[in-house]
Structures are given as structure tokens and as C-alpha cells.
């Protein structure tokens, strides 16, 4: 009896600690937790927004401020990591859509083939625990094990954020850094008001650019496209619209993969029930405009792409209202 009572008490103490830690407002010491902050932006911003959805090619591949100024609508850049997959993010932002919103999908080519990476699962769970559990883990025992693994990993991430929060508290005495949000502990250091990265990818010599010389080859995930179509109908019912834009890509690589990419273009245009704006050729840049992968642009590349996007979107996104003054800070 004594053994059962004492081990039960220890188990209870540990369980309560874990739950308290999970429910605590501590942020996470992981860059992918930034998705929580980014989706939170959708809860705060007004209606008529331009919401960019994509992977790391958007994370540091867009000047949202310039888009906002040019089109006169608040911009939210949800781009973070392609491993989240397009449909997972759409699943999360669906309930947050408002009338007049324009969702711009710009997934990298690789995201169309391999739409979900396991390491993103726990962060998707964090976005909406009750809605996402069954979808992410299922109801089988193996799913429960995965969930426990993710759950404790989230707790670990919270605990590891504590030293950084302490460092931030010290720094705040001398700087005006905003407090951490609910997601990534360094969110306000790494991202600006609209979700653009403040930390550019490091430029590597052209021969070391990742993905170079790799054939764009794979099956486009039909399920993803079906879910995009579902989402577009859902968005339309809410008075929002969805468009697809091709990702930025090196011109030299495009020449190697022209047939395949043009085949994808035809496939997307016939399959998707949303407007596909422009052509893949519209977003080709010199290899010099890429940093460390064929998806990540330099500052110059980012500026060029932003101009192209503004031009393409200007027909779709008439100014809804003036951006909130806080956004220009």
C-alpha cells in the first residue's frame, strides 16, 4: 500500500507539473513556434488582409511592408517552413478568415510534392490542440505515443525558453524590445510586424546553393490540391478569396527543369479551382539573387519579387482600408 500511495503521489506531482507547464504562458525555444505568433497575427489584424501562405521562400522572401504600402491593405506573412504543408496551415487559418481577405498561396515546388514533415506536427498541434489532435495523431496507441513524445518535447521547449526570457528581461532595461508572444521566444527579434524575417539567410557561393542541379521531379500531392479547393470554397463563403502564385526560382535551374515545371503549371491550372496568377517564368531570378537554397532570395531578389507580386496582386487586391498606424512603426 505504502508503495502504491507514494509512487502514485510522485506520479501525480509530476503530472500536475507537466500540465501546469503546458498551460503556462511561457513561449517556446524553437523557431518553428513562430507559426503560433504568425497565426496569432490573424486574430489581431482587421479585415481585408493579404495573407501570404508558403514556406521558407516567403519567410525571408517578401517585403510585406512594401506590399502593404502599395496595395493599402494589411499584410500577414505566414511563410515560415515548407514542412508545415499548405493544407495544414489553411486548416488553421480557415476559422480566422474575414470578409475581404485575400489568401495568396506561394508554396515552393518541393512543398507541392512533400506536403508535411513530422517535426512540424507538434507546432500544428499547438495552434489548435482540441481541433487538431485527431487529425495529427489519430486514435491508435502509436498516435498516443507520438503525442506524448510531442507533448514532452513542447514542455522541453518551454523550459529551454526560460534562460532566454531571463536574458530578454535584462536586455529590456536598455532596449525597447517587446515582450515575447505565445510562440517563439525570440519572435520579436527575428520577425517584423507583418511576419517578415529580420534575419536574412546567409549567402553561400553559387556552387553550394542547396537544391541546385536537382531535378524538380515528383508527384504533386493531389490531396493538397483538393484541400486547397475546399478551402477556397470555405473562404468564398466567408467573403474571402484565394489565389495561387508560382514561387521564386533560379533561371538557370528553370532551364534544366522547363518541361517538368510547365507540366506542373498545366496541371495546377486545370486542377485548382482558384486563379493561378502569372506563370512560372514570371518569378525567375538569376542564381546571384539566391542565398543558400534555390528557394531563398537575397535582399535584391526579395525587392524584385515584391515588385512583381505587387503588380500581379494589384488587380486582385483593391485597397480595403488604410493600414493601422501601429503597422508602420
Amino acid at each position, binding site marked *: 500500500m505504502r508503495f502504491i500511495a507514494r509512487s502514485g503521489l510522485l506520479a501525480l506531482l509530476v503530472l500536475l507539473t507537466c500540465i501546469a507547464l503546458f498551460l503556462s504562458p511561457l513561449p517556446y525555444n524553437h523557431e518553428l513556434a513562430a507559426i503560433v505568433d504568425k497565426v496569432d497575427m490573424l486574430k489581431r489584424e482587421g479585415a481585408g488582409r493579404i495573407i501570404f501562405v508558403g514556406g521558407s521562400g516567403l519567410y525571408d522572401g517578401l517585403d510585406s511592408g512594401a506590399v502593404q504600402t502599395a496595395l493599402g491593405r494589411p499584410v500577414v506573412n505566414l511563410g515560415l517552413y515548407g514542412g508545415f504543408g499548405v493544407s495544414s496551415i489553411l486548416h488553421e487559418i480557415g476559422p480566422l478568415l474575414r470578409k475581404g481577405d485575400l489568401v495568396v498561396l506561394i508554396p515552393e515546388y518541393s512543398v507541392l510534392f512533400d506536403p508535411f514533415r513530422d517535426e512540424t506536427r507538434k507546432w500544428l498541434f499547438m495552434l489548435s490542440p482540441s481541433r487538431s489532435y485527431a487529425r495529427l495523431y489519430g486514435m491508435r496507441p502509436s498516435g498516443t*505515443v507520438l503525442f506524448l513524445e510531442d507533448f514532452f518535447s513542447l*514542455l522541453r521547449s518551454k523550459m529551454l525558453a526560460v534562460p532566454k526570457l531571463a536574458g530578454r528581461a535584462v536586455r529590456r532595461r536598455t532596449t525597447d524590445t517587446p515582450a515575447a508572444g505565445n510562440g517563439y521566444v525570440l519572435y520579436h527579434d527575428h520577425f517584423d510586424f507583418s511576419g517578415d524575417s529580420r534575419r536574412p539567410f546567409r549567402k553561400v557561393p553559387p556552387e553550394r546553393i542547396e537544391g541546385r542541379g536537382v531535378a524538380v521531379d515528383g508527384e504533386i500531392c493531389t490531396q493538397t490540391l483538393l484541400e486547397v479547393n475546399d478551402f477556397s470554397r470555405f473562404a468564398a463563403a466567408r467573403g474571402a478569396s484565394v489565389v495561387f502564385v508560382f514561387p521564386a526560382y533560379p533561371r538557370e535551374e528553370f532551364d534544366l527543369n522547363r518541361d517538368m515545371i510547365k507540366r506542373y503549371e498545366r496541371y495546377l491550372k486545370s486542377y485548382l479551382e482558384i486563379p493561378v496568377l502569372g506563370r512560372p517564368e514570371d518569378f525567375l531570378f538569376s542564381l546571384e539573387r539566391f542565398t543558400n537554397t534555390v528557394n531563398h532570395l537575397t535582399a535584391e531578389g526579395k525587392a524584385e519579387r515584391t515588385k512583381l507580386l505587387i503588380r500581379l496582386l494589384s488587380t486582385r487586391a483593391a485597397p480595403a482600408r488604410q493600414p493601422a498606424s501601429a503597422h508602420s512603426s
Partner: protein
Amino acid sequence: MLFNSLEFLFFFPVVTTLYFVLPHAARWSLLLIASCVFYMVFIPKYIMILFLTITIDYAAGIFIEQAQDRRLKRVYLVVSLVATVLVLAFFKYFNFLNENIGGIARLFHWNYGIESLKIILPIGLSFHTFQSMSYVIEVYRGNQKAEKHYGIYALYVMFYPQLVAGPIERPQNLLPQFREVHTFDYTRVTNGLKLMAFGFFKKVVIADSLATVTAPVFLSPTDYAGHPLIIAILLFTFQIFCDFSGYSDIAIGSAQVMGFKLMENFNRPYASASIAEYWRRWHISLSSWFKDYVYIPLGGSRVSRPRLYLNLFITFLISGLWHGANWTYVIWGAMNGLYIILSNITEPFRNALADRIGISSFPRLQRAWRVVFTFCLISFGWIFFCARSISDSIYMLTHLFDGFIGKSAYTHLVIPGPALLFILVLELVQYAHRDRGTRALYAHKPAVVRWSFYYALVLCILIFGSYTEQKFIYFQF
């Protein structure tokens, strides 16, 4: 079955509960069945190999005891040892030997067409064959009565806590324990569970975290140079200790819960002040096995100096080969043998030097220096242990200091900060238990201290543990 697997999470409580529920007469059967299940989770058919060696050694033990003639006893002993060694040699060393003969044949342009076998080494083969050999030798020496009960003998070889990676038990210690009646003793059970938790902490919190840094380096060392190599080797030094001593703690703890006392396998080895002391503290059950069954039969230390050095060298060479069928392990073993021989030769000179510079007047400082030096030698030796080939180890040896002489390191390591903190915690806990050992962690401290420690330990395992079921390093041996 791995200790750090989901299966074991169910297996252990079920077997332990049944063990205490069943009457004493039925417990050996339960443990034997449980041990079979535990083993068969890896490759079920390999249990036949285990039963083959068990049957041979069981029969040999009885024949040796019954034989009146000393020569006949010796014949039975030799037959048993040869049979056991043949099984080990076939599975573990055939390909190694074959590849080397093939290499020599190619060198001389001979026609040699024997292909390597496509077999997987049975888990823990080196451990249970050594335990079987220990039994037969002890019966032959008259130190142990032959076990007449086949099931009990099979359990001696297969007892699941120590089946796949030791501690390599002696029959005098383990066999009688299967006939003892073990009741549920709160203190013993909780101490066993605490030791298991400490083992899990070492394995899943420290060793597995360090593995994420060291594994890529040893997989492809040429991608690294300079300080990343040094850091990886130092981290591996702690990784292998936490991995193997963690396994031993779980094994000893899980046996302790059921009332069995297995021998100690580690005693703060990195606090050793000499290589000889290190080998008395590291993998104690194997070191003492080699001492009792190889080193002493060769003549031990009661021989001339050159013969003593030869005995030491042979013992360590075999120890290296025991670890793995690869020249890297042989070199590692030889290196440790040379360390001890050189240490023995240079001892008078080193003592004189210590007197001369006055450090011998400060025994603590002198010991600290010797501990650091021994640690460096041991870490250096791990280069051969962890390298996949001789060429990899040579690359590491020749590129260790690249960063310090101008060349920049190629790839940097991301060191897991929490793991370093936990290594410090581990060392402090071990230091606090340097006299009593860790079998009764913080048992003599006030309740607040004890509970805080257990609480923190469980929480650390849950939150900072790895859930990827990484194998224990010593499982491959």
C-alpha cells in the same frame, strides 16, 4: 527488447507483479519465459543458438562434476569451451577473419573465393557466451556445483535484466539467488526503481542527447576538423559511459526490484588516477572476467617483468577483440595494454619527478592531475573505439588540432546545452555517492531532499529524454 522501449514499459511492471504474485516454485518458469520473450523481440530464431550453448554447457557442467579422472574433466571443459567459442567465432568473427584472409590472398594474387556471410550478430552474444564459459570453468575448478535443474541453469544464462549487455555474472553469485525466496521489500524495491530511473536518466537524457552530436561526426569524420573533432571525442567519452553504465543501472535496478543482487559494473571510472585503476572501475564484470580467466591463467603478475607485460598485452588484445570484429577494436585494446605497460615501466621515474618538483607534497593536487591525465588518455583511446575504420581513426588523429594551427574547422557542432548541465549533475550525484554507491540513491537524506531528487529525476527523463529508442552501444557486442 530495449530497456528504453515502449514494450519494456509494459513488460517490466507485468513481469515484476507476476513475480511477486506467483508462488516461489513457479517464479523461475515465469522469469525464464519472460527472458525468452525479452530476447525474442530482437530476432526470434536466434533463441535456438542460445539454447544450443545452454544445453552444451549444462551437460558439460554435469559431466565435469561426475568425471573422476582429472583428464576427462579437462576434456569435457575443452569440448564445452570450444563449442561455445565456435558459436561466438562463427557469428562474430567469421566475416572479419574471412575478409582479412581475402585481403592477404589478394595481396599475393591467390585465388580465394569464400564469400562473407550475410548474418546479423545475435544480440548480446559475447555477454552470454562469457557467462556460460564462466559457469563451466568454475565447475571445473570446483568452485561451483553443477546445476542439475536445466530451467534454473537456462535462467542463469538468460536472466533478462543482464542477458544482452551484462553485468557478466559468476555462477556463485547468481545461481543460488534463483532458489532464494524474495518477498516484496519496500526499501529494496524502491531503491531498485530509483537506480533504474537513474539509469534511464543517463541513457535517454544524457547519452542519447550527446549521440545527436557525436553520431554525425563518427559517421563522416572527414566533414570535420580541429576542435569539433576534439569536442565530439570528449562528448563520446561521456556518451559511452552514460549509455553503458545507464544500461547497467537499469539491469541491476530491475533485478534488485525482484530481489536479485547483480554485481557492480561501474564505479566512477573517470575519477581514476591511472589506467590500471580505470580498468578496475570500468565494465568491472568484464575486467574481472578477463583477470580470472585469461590474465591469471597466463601467469598473472607472479612472473618475470617481460612475461607480465606480455600477459597484460595479450589480455587487453583479447579484450579489444571481444568488443568487436574490427581492427579498430584490436588497436583500442592494444592501446590500453600499452598504456598499462608504459605506466608500469615509468612509475618509478614519474614518482621521482613528482618528488623533485614537489607535487607529491600535495597529494590531492597530484591525484587531480593524474585523474585529468588518465581521462585524456582514455578519451584519446575512444577515437579507435568509435571510428568505423582505421582510416577514419587516422583521419581524426591527424586532424585533431587543425583549428589550432591556422586552418579553420569545416563543420561546426551544435552542442546541446542541457546535456552538458546534466553531465555536471551526474558527476555531482556520483561524487555524493562515492562511498556508498548509487544502489540506494539519497536513501539516507531527509525526505524533502529525497523527494525533490526523485521528482526532478522523473521530470527530467520525461521532458528531456529521447523517445527514439536508440540502441545501447554495447548491444552490438
